[in-house]
């Protein structure tokens, strides 16, 4: 039995390939079932997001199954395997386990630490359990993956800092103004980046956004799109008095908001804080206004610097995440090694012998007056009892050695007899 991952993601395949390989129609697990039915495959889970499509599986002989799988992926998508083969990665054993853990923990994501991936992985697993294509190995693997992801999330800061300009702006607005629901937003001018930031902020507030533009018609068009209110540029100063967050992005060559104007505004606002985001180049807001009490001015470079710093911080945090993943991978691989007939049989024999020996030792006092031969007889009869008890399970385990369901039986025997690592592993699996 071997664990294997086969798939492609944002780092191996361009978007033209990714959009063709998406495992469509897997809502009811039909595709997962098709993969699970591929000859030689024992357990299978399919993961599909916009940045990755991959199959996690266990197979008796991974090498042989690989080609069949690639062909079947081609069939599912109606593609010739040659069109995507070169973009695929295939990982085996510990590498595959580590890969799954990294994916679940969002260490393999395009935006490091983004939180959606874990939900998508869980969804893939849920479909697979419904389609009954998972068994003891992948069930355990997935639970460990969720556990590893949880550890990475709570023990490192990999997901904590905002990594897009729009998000940085929203987070910053929160740190200045607190709860955003009752705040008001003013968008001055237009532009892709400004509209994006405005939309993000707009999602957080209940009040309609106010849109100011040099030409009133343009203000009306944009306001309609954002469900906001248009105003003419001549009312800018009055609007500033009422607004908490201002995004500026006009084509003006000179600053449209100067220090003198904002000083008046702040006096009228009684120095309630105002957050200005200047996305325009050349700048719309005189940089000097940042010196005024309770005025917080960020231009596009400032925001991008914060993004760059936060990305760096996530990368740094990801290193501790990788350490956690390696640790968890090692633990999991240790467990898979115990999942084999020979060690299980040895462990079963040891367990029974241990019981026999301790029970005899416990009654030692009562046997004090037995002579040597009687003692021998006692030893031999107890040994025979445990051998007879163990005989059938051992024969059964040896016979299933070639059987596809062997892992299920090994796992069951380990659990009901609480053999070697099984007991502690059982407790641990409750954690996630």
């Amino acid at each position, binding site marked *: 039995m071997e664990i294997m991952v086969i798939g492609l993601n944002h780092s191996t395949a361009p978007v033209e390939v990714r959009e063709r390989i998406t495992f469509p129609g897997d809502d009811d697990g039909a595709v997962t079932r098709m993969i699970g039915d591929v000859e030689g495959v024992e357990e299978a889970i399919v993961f599909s997001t916009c940045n990755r499509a991959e199959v996690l599986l266990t197979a008796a002989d991974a090498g042989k199954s690989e080609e069949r799988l690639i062909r079947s992926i081609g069939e599912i998508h109606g593609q010739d395997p040659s069109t995507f083969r070169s973009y695929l990665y295939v990982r085996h054993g510990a590498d595959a386990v580590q890969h799954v853990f990294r994916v679940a923990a969002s260490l393999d994501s395009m935006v490091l630490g983004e939180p959606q991936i874990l939900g998508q992985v869980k969804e893939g697993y849920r479909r697979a359990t419904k389609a009954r294509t998972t068994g003891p190995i992948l069930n355990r693997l997935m639970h460990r993956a969720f556990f590893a992801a949880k550890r990475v999330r709570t023990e490192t800061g990999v997901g904590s800092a905002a990594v897009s300009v729009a998000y940085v702006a929203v987070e910053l607005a929160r740190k200045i103004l*607190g709860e955003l629901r009752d705040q008001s937003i003013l968008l001055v001018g237009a532009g892709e980046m400004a509209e994006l930031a405005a939309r993000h902020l707009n999602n957080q507030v209940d009040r309609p956004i106010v849109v100011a533009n040099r030409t009133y018609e343009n203000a009306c068009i944009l306001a309609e799109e954002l469900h906001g209110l248009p105003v003419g540029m001549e009312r800018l100063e009055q609007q500033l008095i009422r607004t908490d967050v201002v995004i500026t992005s006009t084509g003006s060559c000179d600053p449209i908001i100067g220090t003198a104007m904002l000083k008046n505004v702040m006096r009228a606002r009684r*120095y309630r804080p105002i957050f200005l985001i200047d996305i325009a180049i050349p700048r719309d807001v005189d940089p000097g206004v940042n010196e005024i009490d309770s005025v*917080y001015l960020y231009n596009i470079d400032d925001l991008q610097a914060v993004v760059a710093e936060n990305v760096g911080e996530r990368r740094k945090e990801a290193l501790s995440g990788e350490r956690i993943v390696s640790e968890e991978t090692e633990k999991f691989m240790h467990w898979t090694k115990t999942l084999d007939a020979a060690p299980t049989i040895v462990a079963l024999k040891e367990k029974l012998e241990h019981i026999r020996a301790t029970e005899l030792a416990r009654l030692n006092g009562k046997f004090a007056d037995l002579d040597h031969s009687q003692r021998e007889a006692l030893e031999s009869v107890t040994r025979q009892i445990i051998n007879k008890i163990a005989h059938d399970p051992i024969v059964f385990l040896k016979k299933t050695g070639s059987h596809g369901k062997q892992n299920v039986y090994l796992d069951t025997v380990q659990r009901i007899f609480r053999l070697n690592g099984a007991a502690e592993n059982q407790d641990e699996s409750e954690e996630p």
Partner: protein
Amino acid sequence: MDLVFFKIALALYLGASAAYLVFLLVSSESRASLGFWFAVGGFVAHTLSILHRAIFSGFFPLATAFDALSAFAWVLVGIFLLVRYHDPSPIFGSIVAPLASVLMIFGWTLAYQVKEPLIPILRSSWLPVHVMFALAGNGVFAFMAVGGLMYLFQERLIKTKRLGRLHRLLPSLATLDTINRHGLPFGFFLLTLGIITGAFWASSAWGTYWTWDPKETWSLVTWFAYAGMVHQRMVLGWCGKRAAVLAIIGFGLVMFSFVGVNALLGGHHAFQGANRFMLPSGF
């Protein structure tokens, strides 16, 4: 036996401090919530400790430095739990939990008295009322000052565009200003009651309401300072940085009349004959 709840509370506060310290080092949210539940447990045990001491030791309470410091710690944790309800930033816990622990250890090692007869003027029913109001008022002012310091830090960080870990740890400017906005009238109200009940106590102890003893004078100065702040805030709409600076200056005055007056100026709030550390809380 006398201190069993006190010890449990202290142990839990220390546990909370440790959890919050780990939180500060690694930003682990789960540690912060562990710290919070330790603090809640500690607060419950602490409440029992105060009741226990009041009922069984007849020290109702606050007449010795031990009780006063313990009550002050209790007030601080209480305000923290109240604030935590509105803003879950764990940073307050990281300050309050160790502070409460230190206050309790300080009181315990320096001034714990089992049963020493109280000197007569301290046996008045005005006393616990007076001290409780004064302590609660000081607790609120202390919180406002901490909030003010955080405001100045956070404001500086945002203005200078250094949005690192410290920036993320500190609460939002809005939250910090809210502490000031709500704390100011509340603390002022408690301070006023503290001074009035103190006057009644003085009347019952010495027969006059007001004697211009240094501590009384400085309390009055403090009262005027906070009255001024309330005016600035409510009428002139001062908020943000200026309010934060005032909260810090105000607390400096509070600390002076709380501790400094006894040490530097004397007066009848320093009770000779009893423990030297008696009533550093003064008033």
